[in-house]
């Protein structure tokens, strides 16, 4: 009867297990670092928001004095543009995190940070709207609502098109994305205000366009509401005539 070399077999099994355990621990360490990166960026944004809120109240006060309106508008615009860049990058990071973490629908960290982000985006959005009113700031604001990701794998496909357009005309538009699956009351209220009936849905200058739209359709929608650089001559003429 041939011998079973148990010692060698056990050594091989331990080595194999060690490799898998190392990969698992490496992933756990990286997961911790991922979360830390997102949390520290969120903390920075929260701190920046403190500054912006102060500037906003200052702006409200300064608005009374016409001669100071231009300066405060400029300051406010700069601060909001700076913060918007940070919000956008954090949104991308949270999306990357979502792709890496397969079970994101039940991932507590994702739900928590996305909720924080959505709340900040709503504050930012209201400030932008106020600034447009007071400072005659021409800037297209797009609200993007998505959700039902547990039943629809393509729930965030619209985001791909909006990211593409944003990369082309970033200084001219502001895009805020809201995950309806989080059940945030502020997001739900916003969706109700703008009559979001179907997901995905984009709201441009207060008007809802629900359903999936490709690049051409979104460009058309944007051009109806403002003269952005990707509009063709024909689209500008059509927008002016309506």
């Amino acid at each position: 009867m041939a011998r079973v070399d148990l010692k060698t077999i056990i050594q091989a099994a331990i080595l194999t297990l060690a490799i898998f355990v190392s990969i698992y621990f490496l992933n756990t360490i990286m997961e911790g670092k991922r979360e830390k990166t997102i949390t520290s960026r969120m903390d920075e944004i929260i701190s920046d928001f403190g500054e912006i809120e102060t500037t906003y109240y200052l702006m409200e006060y300064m608005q009374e004095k016409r001669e100071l309106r231009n300066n405060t508008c400029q300051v406010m615009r700069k601060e909001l543009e700076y913060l918007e860049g940070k919000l956008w990058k954090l949104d991308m990071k949270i999306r990357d995190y979502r792709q890496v973490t397969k079970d994101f629908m039940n991932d507590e960290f994702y739900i928590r940070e996305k909720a924080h982000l959505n709340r900040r985006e709503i504050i930012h959005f209201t400030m932008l709207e106020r600034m447009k009113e007071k400072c005659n700031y021409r800037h297209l604001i797009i609200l993007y609502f998505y959700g039902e990701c547990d039943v629809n794998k393509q729930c965030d496909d619209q985001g791909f098109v909006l990211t593409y357009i944003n990369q082309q005309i970033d200084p001219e538009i502001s895009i805020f994305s809201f995950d309806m699956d989080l059940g945030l009351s502020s997001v739900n209220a916003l969706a109700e205000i703008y009559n979001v009936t179907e997901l995905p849905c984009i709201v441009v200058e207060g008007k809802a366009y629900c359903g999936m739209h490709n690049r051409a359709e979104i460009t058309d929608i944007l051009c109806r509401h403002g003269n952005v650089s990707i509009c063709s001559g024909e689209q500008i003429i059509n927008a002016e005539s309506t």
Partner: protein
Amino acid sequence: MIATIDADTVIEGDTLEKVCGYFREEDIGAVIVRVRVKNPSNWLEKIIEMEYNMGLGFYLKLLSFLNCLYLTPGQFSIYRKRVLEDLDGFDVNNIVEDTEIAYRMQKKGYRIACCLSAYVYTKVPNNVRSFYYQRRRWYSGTIQTILKHRDVFFNRELGNFGMFFMPVNYGGIIIGTLLFLSTIYLTAQTVYDYIIYYSLINFDIIGSTVNIIQTAEIDPLMISIFYFLGISPFIMNALINFYALRKMGESFRESFFGFICFLFFFIPYNTLWIICAYVVVRNKQIKWRE
């Protein structure tokens, strides 16, 4: 002793000298040598050269230490005459008789030794069609042989061969094939998703890629565990292959093309196993030559 040799194989001068010493041990039934590729010229021959360096060289030597050798390569092997008589010779109805006889040797308690310092040179397929037909015969024949000798699995009497090598090796092939199929499925799904995405932006792939390059942050933290699980076999394979080449005195620089391509050999390998499993299940006849 009786040696078998393929018609397109050439023996190095001192091969018999190096091999004979192994037969001093009475339980040695056969000795195999390293099979090398003669003057590989085209891309396929260079990849097969790497495969032979590992699969008909280094790995067989490792398996011989555990008495787990599962084949006596048809290119060249030497058998003890009385062992061949005891086994009633080769199974003439088997298309991989070199593998089948190894199983019977293991079952009868004979050992197979591997002499890595002795080698022979053989010709290999130099086009995809001949490669396909060769491997179809090899792998289908192996499946038929395993089915014929399925009593070797978890057979304590066969020691490491029955309790370790057979379950781990062929279990690994099955798991590997399933993982390969799931990789194909996930890749196809990802490609489909990206076709949908890019259709929404009029297939402006260049514009989108330029935008991504200009604006994206490369963050190594956003690499999931699946990348590690996918990349680690490549890395381990590369390290083992590199070590094996050095140990066998091969030039890494000369073998570089074959070395790199061999890391992706799992693609045709798994595809062929799936095809051959189908061929065997459908009971199709497999000829020696097509």
